């Protein structure tokens, strides 16, 4: 009986089998990694906006409070997007001729809204509310990152469920006094843990079981 396979056949066979195994593992690992990558969660991507608005300039250089533009952040689920009118309260005086601001002036003149591209957004079936987070001492920076350092606005955190859960499971380290919520330079005190515990009690933060109950965010 002649040999069917060559002497190297077994090596090939094992290589292929191993390769298939490696591929399968890599495929799953790749899928998991992809779901956590920028391709999927859009973190740190600054979309092209009609006006290259700089949060860095307005916050750090001009010292404008978040609430000046996002005026409903304490009273509504939505933080509120500034109307053209709000932009023009300043820009009718400053940079009135700047080419960059032409779309804003045009919007006011034609009474046509500016089409901004939303950067921070959760899926439709997630019911996020700004007002309660502000009221409980969760700072802007917790979700939006150092927006005061962003010349162009990008998504700072992956708005995935795990990200939300991280804080809902253990809110204490993410809390700060209510008055420091808009302060980007706030430094936690030495005993951050004690502060967290105190604020948990003071703000009557609900238990992790309640905060991680599905109905808290999904309805």
């Amino acid at each position, binding site marked *: 009986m002649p040999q069917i396979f060559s002497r190297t056949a077994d090596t090939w066979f094992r290589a292929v089998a191993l390769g298939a195994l490696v591929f399968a593992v890599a495929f799953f690992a790749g899928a998991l990694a992809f779901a956590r990558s920028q391709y999927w969660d859009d973190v740190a991507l600054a979309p092209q906006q009609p006006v290259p608005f700089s949060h860095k300039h307005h916050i750090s250089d001009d010292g404008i409070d978040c609430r000046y533009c996002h005026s409903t952040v304490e009273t509504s689920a939505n933080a509120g997007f500034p109307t053209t009118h709000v932009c023009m309260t300043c820009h009718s005086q400053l940079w009135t001729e700047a080419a960059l601001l032409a779309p804003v002036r045009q919007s006011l003149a034609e009474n046509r809204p500016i089409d901004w591209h*939303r950067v921070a957004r959760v899926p439709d079936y997630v019911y996020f509310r700004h007002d309660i987070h502000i009221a409980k001492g969760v700072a802007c920076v917790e979700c939006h990152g150092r927006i005061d350092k962003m010349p162009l606005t990008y998504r700072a955190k992956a708005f995935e469920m795990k990200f939300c859960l991280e804080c809902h499971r253990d809110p204490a380290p993410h809390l700060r006094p209510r008055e420091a919520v808009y302060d980007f330079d706030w430094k936690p005190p030495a005993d951050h843990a004690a502060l967290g515990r105190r604020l948990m009690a003071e703000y009557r933060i609900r238990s992790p079981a309640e905060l991680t109950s599905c109905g808290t965010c999904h309805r």
Partner: protein
Amino acid sequence: MSGGKTFWRSLDEYQRSDAFGEMLKAEFPSIFELWTADRRQVLRVMGASLALAGMTACKPVRSDDVVPFVYRPEGFLEGRTDHYATAVPFEGYAQPVLATTSAGRPIKLDGNPEHPAFRGGSTPFMQAAILDLYDPDRSQEPLMAGRPASWDEFDGQMVKWRDAWRASGGAGLRLLIGSTTSPTLLRQIAELKRALPQARVHLFDPLGGYAGGAPQRLRPKLDAADVVVSLDDDLLGPGPAQAIHGRAWGERHGDAQERMRLFVAETTPTQTGAKADRRLGIPPSRLAMLAKAIVGGGKVTLTDQELAWAKEARQALESTRGRSLLTIGPSAPPQLQAAALQVNRALGNVGRTCEVAAPLTYVPEPGGSFLDLVRDIEARRVSALFVLGPNPVYQAPGDIPFAALYAKVALRVHAGLHTDETGAISNWHLPLPHALEEWSDARSPDGLATIVQPVVRPMFDSRSLHEIVASLTADAVPSAREIVRKTWARQLGDDAAWAGALKTGFVAMPARAAAPANVIPPPSPAAAPKNGEVEIVIRPDPTIHDGSFANNGWLQELPKPLFKTTWENVVAISPRLAAELKVESGDVVRVESGGRAVEGPAWVLPGQPQQVITLYLGYGRKRAGRIGTGIGYDAYRLRSAAEPWNAVGTVKPTGERVKLATTQEQHLMDAEGADLIRTVTPAHPSALRNEEELDRTSFYPEWPEHDPAWGMVIDLDRCIGCNACVLACQAENNIPVVGQHQVYEGREMAWLRVDRYYAGEPDDPETHFQPVPCMHCEQAPCEMGCPVHATVHSPDGLNLMVYNRCIGTRTCSSYCPYKVRRFNWFDYTTDAPSPTEAQRNPDVTVRGRGVMEKCTYCIQRIEGAKVQADIENRDVRDGEVTTACQQACPAQAITFGNLADVESAVAGQRKSPRNYSLLGEQGTRPRTTYLAKIGDEPDGE
């Protein structure tokens, strides 16, 4: 309305292809499925940018557009809802509502809680009115001879006509208006008569009679009555005062100290009869005789049963003088109405349990009835007819060929929400705005007026009825708002008073003195059937009413309270007659009367008087829109102008059989069923069957108690089966309409259903209603079955349904002993027509294909209240969370709240001996429990 253009065009294109609409209806689960218009355009029309709640994949959504305002409208807050007090019309009466708007679009209507009579109660019609606002089939621009035209063109024509009328004093000009209570319209009519003395205003009121209205009305005040005897008066059924009566009913039932006793004799089963302590089914031909037996005097020929009922009712009336009430239905002959008035006067009831007052609605002057108009057209005395609102071509009685007569009028102008049967054959059709879009006013049945204020910009190129009427005489027409304000100039002259009236939603108005009572002719017996004939009773449909709600998908799919059929009308037939004729529910029968005939599916209705059949108005529409056209039979064809509510004729099966889209089979309760609906009696005050029902032994360790612990109690003694809760739930929770075919298949989506059970003899059964939402079982079988944690329990006791986690195994529904879960068999929502999706509640996820859904106890409201309380650093107060069904219930049969709070209303009701769990023996520990009905008969009978 720059954005309106493309929107129109697509609609227009759509409307031209009727065949397409037919195909949609036949072929697709959602009648709306394929029809889309550009969503963004619509949102711009709505005047705000917002993301509608929609369910997409699990991917975090990529950057998309956000379109802020240029100027923020005053008082507008993104993400928050606003409430406006206004009213929607029903039979010309105001139904005071609180309109909830989100991002500038109205999303929900509820009874105005400040209103002294409605006190927050709603009816299904009030709840459904919002869908009419977004009806994509509404007429959207003036039509001249069926072709699009502009208001400018119309105004141009108007100038010529106006000149002619001025010269002739309005000779030949006739207006035909529907039933109305609007003080402004009444004022305008009076002014019109002064300006054009030759013109005449006719009333077309198919539900009040074609010959004109009664000069007096008995206005019941049920809350003051200990005994109510109703002769064919469906007090608790559909009607402008349903919410008021329902409220009174609720206050005199359940845990009320002084219980109202209700005697009902009816010619066809109604909700009122279902709730009666003593019910009697009686053919219309003997109703007068029965009245005579109660009024007393004269010899009567009645059966023993009828006599016994009459005797008991009479005794009850007399034993509670001043606290009793005899009421006669509007469909009974006027002679009987007058007799009832007499009896109530004699018993000293007037002023206590009822009032006698002039009608609030427009009463035409002599010669102003519809029949007078018909005569005048025949006599060629009418050269221009403005049909302002009603639809006489469809709603005229069968013995008047109105379509042909109408065509004889040279100038026919129709104004309405739809290009309906009348609009289609008019020279001009003018779109009217929806009540939520324009200024007007109206009066609610209790006599108060409501200023109807717009809560949204008109979506289409419509013009207010008031403006149209004004333009008949005036060259320069003020805006509707100015016209309405002028009416109220004296009472609400200053801006503060006006603003106050708008805010509260009602204005007191002086009652007009009642006209003197007419001389009462002796009751004349209704036509008796000859051998082989049956008596025919004609009634408005329980959900579509007179046909004006035919294009409302919610109301079409709302199960009729007693039949549980949807999407068509039936011919109600008694079990015995059905046996004689060998027909079953679903067999088509042919009903003939006066040489005219209709064919419709029979429905064997327990409690229907034996030789009586009932037809229901409102169906058989030819031009209602995509939803309402071409379903059911048209009972108007069998009506006669002289006697619109009754007829005599024959009925026979055609041999054809249709499948009815019912949501519940007919069931008589057996012994086992009696466990589902329980009745307590003075002898047996506890609803519990045995001690075991309190046993909470379980194999499982208990989860920790939690505060709050949400729970609901439904009082079956108070429930009147009106379905307001069902529609409130539908409106609140974005529940889709799935269409007739899907209901055939058993796929209706209602989260809350009102089950109807019969007990006893089919000829004279007890009828029970039982609203069934999700029970939020503490040991929920459904949750155990879900492999992916898509339905789980929250610490505060909610049985959560996480749509975005659901993969659609349907195990939960298989395991659910109550079968309250609903499944998205197809994609019922994505491609809903553009305006209707604007109604959706942004706080509730719109469910996509393949996921389960069910009652959530309105979790969006719970979470909203919790967040508000948390912001204010306090606990949620009792009563702060109301579920949509609870809010809507006129009879206050539903209580919701925190069971862990011993002070709460719901915890109090749980302690009632009437409290019991549905299928409690299954160990599911429902959080929704029931309070048993209260009967005066021994238990189990």
